[in-house]
């Protein structure tokens, strides 16, 4: 897990070093770090809490000297809850994709977080290089709005953010929602898409959403339940995978070229500092707000519905057979891991 994060995290420091202002690198690192810790704790606590579905099936999920407790479905006992949940977060925060537990069997909230981390465009450390530039695009957006709020033409790292930068950033912002939402929309409408679903109901929809989120940003692995090795999914996911990379790289290069050609402005009291806690908060806010606003409706129909359903199982004491539509059997083999 450390190796997965090593290079992308170190690149933040390199970034600061190259700028001749390490604080800039640390600010980016802090924003990524805070997002990661928050997300990892959500997954860990969701998994440790277990699921009412298993409880209603008569399984004991409490932690005790004899067992780790929590949702152990699809997890190896040698890894337990924390290592599995942490790995799931790390692998989707960074552009890795290797797994040590079955993501399809995570609790709804535990599954939502990895999915959302990918949908953000993999900016929480992310891929080697791609995580950093993804985050820098969010920084440009954050600085643009913040710059306006203090009454100045926005600037980042001494370079003015103008029309070209905004055009390219806008294109980049559009890529992930377009691939993920449109891809999922096509898949749920066509019989070829629906055919791959292993679990009926909201979870089946989550599987497709996860597949497209992963293809466009991560390594293209599906929630294990989805039978993705079909001509339909192979084609759709390949297109998503291709555009999810190059449709972002090209505008990023355009921004880089344009910024490099600009005069560097000396910082002074009127300049918005981009290294303090305020900027880190702002950056996290931009990532979360754009990410949330874009994917909340889609997530609401998948994992959120699953989660509320499961909670209501608990409160209403409905028997497991009536509600549990998910296969509590052994996890299906992963398709693309």
């Amino acid at each position, binding site marked *: 897990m450390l190796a997965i994060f090593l290079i992308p995290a170190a690149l933040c420091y390199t970034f600061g070093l190259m700028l001749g202002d390490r604080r800039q690198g640390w600010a980016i690192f802090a924003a990524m770090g805070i997002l990661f810790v928050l997300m990892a704790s959500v997954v860990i606590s969701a998994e440790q809490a277990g699921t009412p579905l298993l409880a209603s099936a008569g399984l004991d999920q409490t932690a005790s000297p004899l067992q780790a407790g929590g949702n152990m479905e699809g997890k190896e006992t040698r890894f337990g809850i924390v290592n599995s949940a942490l790995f799931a977060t790390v692998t989707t925060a960074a552009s890795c994709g290797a797994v040590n537990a079955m993501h399809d069997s995570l609790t709804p909230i535990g599954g939502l977080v990895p999915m959302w981390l990918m949908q953000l465009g993999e900016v929480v450390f992310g891929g080697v290089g791609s995580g950093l530039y993804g985050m820098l695009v969010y920084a440009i957006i954050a600085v643009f709005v913040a710059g306006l709020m203090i009454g100045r033409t926005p600037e980042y790292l001494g370079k003015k953010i103008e*029309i070209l930068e905004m055009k390219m950033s806008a294109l980049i912002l559009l890529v992930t929602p377009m691939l993920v*939402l449109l891809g999922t929309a096509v898949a749920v409408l066509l019989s070829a898409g629906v055919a791959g679903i292993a679990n009926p109901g909201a979870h089946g929809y989550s599987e497709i959403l996860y597949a497209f989120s992963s293809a466009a940003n991560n390594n293209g692995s599906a929630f294990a339940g989805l039978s993705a090795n079909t001509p339909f999914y192979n084609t759709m996911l390949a297109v998503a995978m291709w555009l999810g990379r190059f449709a972002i790289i090209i505008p990023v290069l355009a921004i880089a070229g344009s910024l490099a050609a600009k005069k560097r402005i000396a910082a002074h009291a009127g300049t*918005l500092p981009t290294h303090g806690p305020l900027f880190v908060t702002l950056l996290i*806010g931009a990532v979360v707000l754009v990410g949330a606003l874009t994917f909340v409706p889609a997530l609401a129909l998948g994992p959120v*519905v699953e989660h509320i359903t499961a909670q209501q199982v608990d409160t209403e004491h409905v028997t497991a057979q009536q509600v549990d539509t998910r296969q509590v059997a052994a996890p299906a083999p992963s398709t693309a891991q």
Partner: protein
Amino acid sequence: MQPSSASSSLGSRFILRALVQSLLKLSPRVQWRNPVMFVVYIGSLLTSVLLLLPQAEQSAMPIGFTWAITLWLWFTLLFANFSEALAEGRSQAQAASLKNARKNISAKKLASASRHAALTLVDSLSLRRGDLVLVEAGDSIPSDGEVIEGIAAVNEAAITGESAPVIREAGGDFSAVTGGTQVLSDWIIMRVSANAGETFLDRMIAMVEGAKRQKTPNEMALTILLVALTLIFLLVTASLLPFSIFSVQAAGAGAPVSILVLVALLVCLIPTTIAGLLSAIGVAGMNRMMQANVIATSGRAVEAAGDVDVLLLDKTGTITLGNRQASAFFAAEGVDLATLADVAQLSSLADETPEGRSIVVFAKNEYGLRERSMKKLGAVFVPFSAQTRMSGIDIGERKIRKGAASAIRAWVESQGGAFSAQMAASIDDIARRGSTPLVVADDAKVMGVIELKDIVKGGIKERFAALREMGIKTIMITGDNRLTAAAIAAEAGVDDYLAEATPEAKLALIRQYQAQGRLVAMTGDGSNDAPALAQADVAVAMNTGTQAAKEASNMVDLDSNPTKLIEIVEIGKQMLMTRGALTTFSIANDIAKFFAIIPAAFVSTYPQLGVLNVMQLSSPNAAILSAVIFNALVIVVLIPLALDGVTYRAMGAAALLRRNLLVYGLGGIIAPFVGIKLIDMFLQLLGLV
């Protein structure tokens, strides 16, 4: 520029006109210019078509609900149009008063530059650049131009709103006249400097009317961001239809989400608040400039003003009161103060410069010397010239002179006189204090020194401190020597100074700062300022200044108040801040709207989603309608903020950001929760849902 424009904006006729305008602006050609509102436009058309379809074609929605949503979508558009019309209306009122000044008049065109040359009466519109025109008392000045002969009192109230007449005379910095103003006394011969339709007044009217208002670069960058958000939300809502169809199949309950609800969701999510008010904010920014009696030649200039980080300020008139005043006499050895005062007064009797007058006044107040008549003394005035750098009087053979130390020294020494070390020391002393030493000599004898003191304007130091806080560097420009300049710079609290400034030195200084990537603003009035004004990013010419200075500038201050530059920067910043604040508010609003609409739209498929209805809205339809109504009303509520701008306080960037994030970010998250709930309760109260 009638100051009443602000209050007239509240007039009922004014609002009525804006209402009519907002209906006219529903034309697709107008709507197309604002991409975000155009999406609302298409959405409104779509739901209107739904209304026309037979009942069976529609979804299960009650017809009243469809009507209500459709009406409120149209209201959203109308409210946005209304804000723009209101801002434009203010401008048009100002333009109307300017147009009155532009009425066609007949001009007395001269064949040559002489009062007695052949004279033809022509229409002012036929005047061309270079034509010579005689303007006499009572006549209106037919076009912009330069006085080449004569002197006259001119009423420039039509342009400046200032009723006190100003003097315009040939030569010097007060030779420019503006078309539409009126000569009150005497006569002038002017050379026309602008063709009809290109005069200052014409440009002002075009600006004020904003007919060809172009989007500023920053406004365009913001529009791109808003369009990107709109496209994202378009994707979000469009993909919800297939998601919903699938979910209905999967859950086996409810009906797919209707087009009506999707349109409502889309309109609520896209940043309509900022997009609807964006145009009004731009027009209002220009209006505020005009209320400050500044005419900007483009919106771009107003925006650049907000970005300025170096201010070049002329010492005289901006930092110090216009004129230096005599504040002390220092006699040379062997001369008593009373004698010095007597000679100093004699030397200044005919000197009409403010400094000269102040010496006479000082001699009278401090030494009881009454003013004497030049005629009775048989004295001849020797005016100041650039060669001698002295002025004074000759009484018979006796020559009394006053001037700069170096000039008097040369003059005295050429006559065999001596310039004592004690004199030189007191001259240095005075200069170090930031005052100007003026040496008085009676023939070959140095009598003493007059200290002319610069009076730093009250409160200016605090303003510079505020500017520093905003990250703006102030630089004082003066023709004084370094010593004098340093002392005044320290007293006034500017960051830096340019002493012994020549037009070339000013130009070089501006280029030097621009090379560092800074934006420079300056004011100027003389023709020698023109190159520097043309180079500066924000150049404000004084209305009293020469035509060359005005042409080189991108703003003209009608009050000719150099301190105005500080206000201009604040107005520019305020415009950008208003945009930023409303963008943040608009995006932050979406969170509450999600909580209102998502559960409402899908609760029939997944009843579990009802727990997301945290506002406890009475019914799904009420929730959607309340969100749409809130979305429309918030535009109306924010119109005053868009027109007047967010309050601006001089503080550091981080502090300002923290404050605005709290008010517009956090406020933007909370306000819609409260607003939507209140609208829902109100709808329930009326029994509409």
